[in-house]
Structure formats: C-alpha cells, structure tokens
C-alpha cells in the first residue's frame, strides 16, 4: 500500500508547484495509473515515492512506513523501478543487469543466478540472451530485462515511468498484456505513469487524472471515470470517444450471445430463406454440425443446391475474452455486420450493434 498525504513539490527554479497537495492511497496489489498532459507532475509524483525527488511538503508511507524513515538507498532497494529509457547498464551483461539489486543486497552468487533464471522465465526472456550485453538486444527484450531487473529482489512495490513508451505499438500492446498476466500472479502494488489514456484505462485498477500543476482531478476505477467524469477537464482529457473507450472494459462474455440464423450446410434455398426471414437478415450462418463453416448470402444460395456451396468463412473471429470494442470493430469492418464469437471451431453466437448498445447503456 502506498499512501500519499498532502504531497506538494515546488521546484527551486519555479514558483508554481509541480505537484499540489496530492492525497491518494494505492491499495495493496492494485495498479494505479497516473495520467495527464505533459507537465502535470505525474513523473514528479512517482519520483517522490522512491525519493529521487524530495517532496516540499507532505508525507509518503509505504506499507505504513514513512518513506523518509529509512536511508534512501535502502528504501529504493525495496522498490522496483522501471523507466521509459530503461537505463540498462551497457557495461554489464543482461544477467548482471537483472541481478543488480540482489547483488547490492549481498545475495550469494548461486542464489542470484537462480533468481535471474527464474525471472527470465517469468518475463519470457530467451535464456540465450542472458550472457549478452544490452546493446545486442531488441527494444522489446530490453524492456523485459528492465522489468525483470525491477522485480529481482521481489519488492512489494513497483514504480513504472512510461514503461512502454519507447517500443512500437505492437510490442507495446503485447507487453501491456504480459504486465497484466504477470500482475495476476504477483499482486504487486504498482504505480505507473503514462500520458496515454488508453494505456491507463487498459492497465489501471484505478486511474489518477492529473492536470497542470499536479492537481488531482479524479481518482477512480477506469469504468467509473468513463461513466462519470468529475469535471470538464477529465471529460476533455478522455476525449469524445468515451463511450467506445468504455466498451474496451466490457468483455463480450457479458452479452447473452444469440446463435443467430444458423442453418446446416445441407439446407435448401427455401429453408435458408425461411431462417433468414425469421431473423430479419439477408444472410445465414452455415454449420456442418462439428464446426462452423462461415456465412452465406441468401441471394448466393443456388435454387436447386444446398447452402454449403455458398458458404464463406468469417473475416474476423473473436474469442470469449475479446472486448466489446473489438466486437464493434468487427461489426463496422465486415459483412455481415456482426461479430462472430468462437469457441474453437464452433460459433457460440454473434454480437450485434444493438446488443453492444444495450450493454453500453446498462
């Protein structure tokens, strides 16, 4: 647990505070994302937690203990720290980099080696790179090393400053997913800084939205912030697509999935027309009993043959852990205008725009 209590920082070279009277509590095992425009004091706040910046006023308690009650280097060894530029030591191998804090804590060699290999596995880092120097790694690998290094001494608290800011969007999305998976196992108390509201919504158990001068505008779960932005600043920062952002927080499994106009592949033209009419569509889902083959346009079914000949595979297939935002994307970018949700080879149901609308309003 991290408690910030009336935290204020005024830098010597400026008169306006960088952080103003900030009070909030990050519960144990939660990810709190600090988000806001540049200059809103989010990084300053983070750096006050491990005392890279000393507050002008206010106190910080970590698991009940005041941050300034222990020597600063001891405090920092108990807090994992990941920054955007990662800051790996170029003169040390990946193994030595990951083992930094354990060796500062005087662990013995075998224990460090064992821990390093454990961490490499945890962050899905190829053990072959352990004895290379950081210069030989890709951006994604460096980021993994950075996270492994921060976790090395198993600190209860992790500070992450724009941890995925320097990698490309595809790698970023994967690393974000991995962080969430990791967190399900580790239950660290994490304070993470980003300027990307989508990243904040995706990663945060709670999101702290700061405005210029380090003023806390709202601190709540992403869902409640999206539903009830506290003021115009928050609403503006969330953007005009607040409703769609919310969809990214709702899994498709919350919707009662209707199977839709399903016909067997042997169905005749007349049977297809009947099913399509019943559902008010001009297409049907073709199913051969064991697997879902795809869909067929009613007009494309041969008058004298079976529907199977006209079946086309679905362009997108969602799984049950997809979000409504992904479902909406599938709806607007494919024909027929539905999002098919699959469990393996079998269609569980299709999500329609109406169903998404109902879920979003509820």
């Amino acid at each position, binding site marked *: 647990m991290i408690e910030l209590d009336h935290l204020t920082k005024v830098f010597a070279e400026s008169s306006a505070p960088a952080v103003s009277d900030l009070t909030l509590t990050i519960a144990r095992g939660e990810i709190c994302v600090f988000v806001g425009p540049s200059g809103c004091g989010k990084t300053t706040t983070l750096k006050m937690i*491990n005392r890279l910046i000393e507050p002008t006023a206010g106190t910080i308690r970590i698991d009940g203990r005041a941050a300034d009650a222990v020597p600063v280097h001891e405090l920092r060894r108990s807090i994992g*720290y990941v920054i955007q530029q*990662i800051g*790996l*030591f170029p*003169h*040390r191998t990946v193994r030595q980099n990951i083992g930094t804090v354990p060796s500062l804590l005087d662990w013995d060699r075998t224990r460090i080696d064992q821990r390093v290999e454990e961490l490499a596995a945890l962050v899905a880092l190829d053990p072959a790179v352990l004895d290379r120097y950081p210069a030989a790694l890709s951006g994604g690998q460096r980021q993994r090393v950075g996270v492994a290094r921060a976790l090395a001494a198993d600190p209860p608290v992790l500070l992450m400053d724009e941890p995925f800011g320097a990698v490309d969007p595809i790698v970023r999305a994967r690393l974000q997913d991995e962080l969430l998976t990791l967190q399900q196992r580790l239950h660290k108390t994490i304070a993470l800084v980003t300027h990307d509201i989508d990243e904040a919504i995706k990663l945060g158990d709670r999101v702290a939205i700061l405005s210029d001068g380090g003023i806390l505008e709202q601190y709540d779960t992403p869902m409640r912030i999206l539903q009830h932005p506290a003021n115009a600043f928050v609403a503006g920062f969330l953007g005009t697509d607040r409703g769609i952002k919310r969809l990214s927080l709702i899994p498709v499994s919350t919707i009662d999935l209707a199977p839709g106009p399903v016909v067997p592949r042997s169905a005749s033209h007349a049977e297809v027309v009947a099913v399509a009419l019943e559902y008010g569509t001009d297409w049907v889902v073709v199913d051969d009993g064991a697997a879902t083959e795809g869909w067929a346009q009613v007009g494309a079914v041969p008058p004298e043959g079976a529907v199977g000949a006209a079946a086309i595979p679905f362009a997108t297939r969602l799984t049950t852990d997809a979000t409504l935002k992904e479902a909406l994307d599938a709806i607007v970018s494919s024909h027929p205008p539905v999002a098919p949700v699959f469990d393996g080879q079998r269609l569980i149901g299709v999500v329609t725009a109406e169903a998404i609308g109902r879920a979003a309003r509820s």
Partner: protein
Amino acid sequence: MTHLAQASSGFFSWEWVASNLDDIWDRTLEHLVLTAIAVCVGMVVSLLLSLVALRYRRTYAPISWIAGVLYTIPSLALFAFFVPITGLSILTAEIGLVSYTLLILVRNIVAGIDGVPPATVESALGMGYTRRGLFFAVELPLALPVIVAGLRIAAVTTIGLVTVTALIGQGGLGFFILRGLNLFYSPIGTTQIVVGTVLSIAIAIAVDVSLVGLERLAMPWARRRAAA
C-alpha cells in the same frame, strides 16, 4: 651490419650503439619511469580534481582554467622556475611533467562522466546505488573510453616532454639528444640524437598501442558494441 655502418659512417655509428647498449637500456628505463610517475601522479591528481569539479560544479571552470594556464607555460620556463626551489632533481622534472597532464586528464574525466546517459544514472540511483557506488560501479566504467582517450594523449605528450628534462639533469633518452647536440658535427653526436629520438618515438607508439589493447581488454562491452 658492417655494410650499413660503412655506408652511413658520416652520420651514424653502429659502433657507438654497440658499445653503449647498457647505457641506452638504462636511459630507456629511466625514460619509462619518469613517464610512468608523471602519468600516474597526474591521473590521481586529476581524479581528485575531477571529483571536486563534479561534486561542486562551480569549481570546474576555475580548475580547468588553472590547468589550461599551466599547459600554456613553456616547458623550459617551468623547469627553470622550479630549479632554485627543488634543485636539479627528479622532483623538479615531475612537477613539470605532472602539470602538463592535468588539463587533458581532468577535461576527459569530467567529459567522460558527464557523457554517461542520464537514464543509466537515474535507474542506478532508483535501484539503490549510493553516490559512491554509482561513481565506481557505473559512472567510472562507462566513462572509461573517454578517460583512456585522454590518458593516451597525456602519456604520449609526456614521453615527448621527458626529453626536455635532460636540461635539468634528468631526461631519460633526452640525455642522448642533449649530449648529441653538444657534439653536433660528429657522427657520434648525430648517432646519439637519432638514438634518443627514435627510441622516444618508439616508446610513445608502444605505450599508445598497449593502452589501446588494455582498453579493449577492460571493456568487452564497448568492443562488441563497436563490432555490432
């Protein structure tokens, strides 16, 4: 050999070289010792000055200015100035030689430490390095390429300067050059000038090459990065 000696008998005498091998060896060693002392003491003094300059940024300009002024003093004048105080001694020679190393070494040490990426320093501090640990375990190793570059220049410069200290009774190989100058129009004179000069150059090259080798040994990470 005989053929060569005859062909160049007007300028160079192999006989002199052959009969003075012991002396040449001793002077070469002396040259190396004078250089080693100057560079080592210069390095220690420069490290201390750099620590002060890095810790108290305002002192960097004056420190660098004083080192710069020392560097501009003609070497003859500097040695002459100290003779009445410290005599025709090795101390006089070293005071001068050390002074000339300071500018290059201090500037390179400070530039090397300043060149360490801020993100590396921040993450080191964030993980709980003390200031001293940061300096020795992170900043100094990362500054090493720049520091060694300065060390090479300082060493090569010093090896050349050592010859000048012959004027105050030291000099290593400079001893031969000075004595040769006094016997200038004789083959024995030119021989000594050539021997002193050539060996001094050879030492400079050898020291420079060994420092490069040492640098590569000490910095496997930099070598691989350069190769990448």
